[in-house]
């Protein structure tokens, strides 16, 4: 009896989480524009989506920004995680405190603060400002995932490599980086997701014509939701599903859990 209750409970929560997604997927294949009646199967919203330049440009922007920003953030964050480890506890706490600010602060405040800063320095908003803003809020996630891996044993391994004659660079690349790899990968993935998912900060820092998927949806919803957005949702969901399964599969093979 208790078992059934458990299953029912989980079932309800899962339904709650997936209902909107299922609805979007179903409606994306709907022939009519109606949002309540399924009148027949059709791929026309997919056609419309792929031929819509604004959507495609937004998709391209989203991914170029996410990839560049997450890679940049991962590089800076990884070096930082190692560098912070070499500091005194007081310095560490201070720096980590600052590192936590974008994590804990409201997105809207971060976005506004960056907007004001860009304009104060006379930087006109464009693709670059979005990129810089994204790197800013991605770095903390990288540090968060890499730092726990920078521990005493990695330090010792690094010293062991030096002891055996390796240069600092060689030891860093050959010994330290492989040790940190799961953390680095997790950080990269996390910041990529955060970047793709971000709306608020992009909303405030985007320049003329720079739409990401999020900002495009925001303006489209005001005009009126078109089913081509459902098609977009479906494709994004499918991509996410495949990517997550892939990552999970790969990490299981290596016994490193990257996500969660």
């Amino acid at each position: 009896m208790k078992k059934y209750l458990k299953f029912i409970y989980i079932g309800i929560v899962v339904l709650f989480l997936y209902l909107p997604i299922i609805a979007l997927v179903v409606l994306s294949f709907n022939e009519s524009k109606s949002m309540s009646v399924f009148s027949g199967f059709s791929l026309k919203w997919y056609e419309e989506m792929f031929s819509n330049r604004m959507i495609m440009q937004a998709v391209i922007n989203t991914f170029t920004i996410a990839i560049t920003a997450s890679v940049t953030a991962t590089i800076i964050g990884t070096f930082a995680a190692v560098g912070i480890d070499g500091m005194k506890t007081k310095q560490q706490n201070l720096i980590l405190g600052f590192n936590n600010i974008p994590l804990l602060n409201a997105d809207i405040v971060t976005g506004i603060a960056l907007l004001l800063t860009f304009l104060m320095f006379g930087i006109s908003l464009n693709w670059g400002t979005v990129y810089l803003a994204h790197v800013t809020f991605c770095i903390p996630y990288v540090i968060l995932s890499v730092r726990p891996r920078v521990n005493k044993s990695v330090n010792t391994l690094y010293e062991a490599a030096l002891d055996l004659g390796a240069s600092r660079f060689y030891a860093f690349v050959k010994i330290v980086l492989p040790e940190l790899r799961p953390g680095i990968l997790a950080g990269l993935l996390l910041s990529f997701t955060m970047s793709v998912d971000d709306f608020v900060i992009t909303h405030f820092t985007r320049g003329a014509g720079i739409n990401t998927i999020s900002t495009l949806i925001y303006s489209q919803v005001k005009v009126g939701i078109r089913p081509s957005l459902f098609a977009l949702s479906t494709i994004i969901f499918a991509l996410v599903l495949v990517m997550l399964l892939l990552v999970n599969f790969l990490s299981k093979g290596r016994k490193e859990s990257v996500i969660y």
Partner: protein
Amino acid sequence: MKELIKLENITKNFGNLRVLDDFSLTVHENEFITLLGPSGCGKTTILRILGGFETADVGRVFFEGKDITDLPANKRNLNTVFQKYALFPHMDVKANIAFGLKINGKSQKYIDDKVDYALKLVNLNGFEKRSIDKLSGGQQQRIAMARAIVNEPKVLLLDEPLGALDLKLRQEMQYELIRLKKELGITFIYVTHDQEEALTMSDKVIVINDGYIQQMGTPEEIYNEPENAFVADFIGDSNIIDGLMIKDRLVRINGAEFPCIDEGFGNNKPVDVVIRPEDVLVKDRGYGRINGTVLTRVFIGVHYEMLIKSGENDFEWLVQCYEKYDIGDEVSLDVIPSNIQIMHKPTSSDEEAIDIDI
């Protein structure tokens, strides 16, 4: 023997904490030297300064007469066996051992031979392709040794290399280390907090506390003739008793006078007296110099260990003997003169500091 390493007036602080204070030490070729002391005494710091992982705030380090104080770790001709081995987990056994050789640009043939030789030396031939996490603690220990010695260092620094092993394996590895040392003919500098390891393997033991050398000498000297209360207490169990040196060769302890063999402490001077528990003779009442009562008794294998209360200030003697006495038994105690070790009282509240050049 040729002088190999010299530490000159090293001082090192971590924040407000002074770990080493004007520390000097000389190591000769082909010695097995053990730095022995409780954790936090500065022994590991000495090793790290030697290895090039820490820089001294003050003082110089010489290696074969050359000043290497500012030489980075990867340029020093000495190798370290780390506390927890620090084997590279993403490489197999062979890649680990070959790591240093590859960096030095040795030929593949040389590397293969050397790895082969090193594995034989540590009795692990055939383990080349094993991954590190498939090795037992003892095996990892051997690989760590092999990885260090293939580079043919003049000095091998060992930082509590046996600390993570269980007792039986530790004893085995002690003999192994002595054998390796003999075969390689190089200098070992060994850091441990385990007095048994120090006494078993070393040619010379240096007891360190609070950043100072407390005593140095052969294992026998250290054990039998501790120079101060710290050493006496740290090396084995001891009874450390306030005493009064009445005159040469006569000391008053616990209300009774004992003949001893020490001279030159002056007359009627307070001293510390060290007597090892196994050196206390337990006799029937009336047959010894002082009377006591058995407080506790534990059988610890070969012999019994007892606490015996005695004398004018109820001093509790730690005593080991083969005969069985019951709790509450009235006994007498005696010590033969050569087993009484007389030491100066420390001049200040600090432990007495003695700097000795080896």
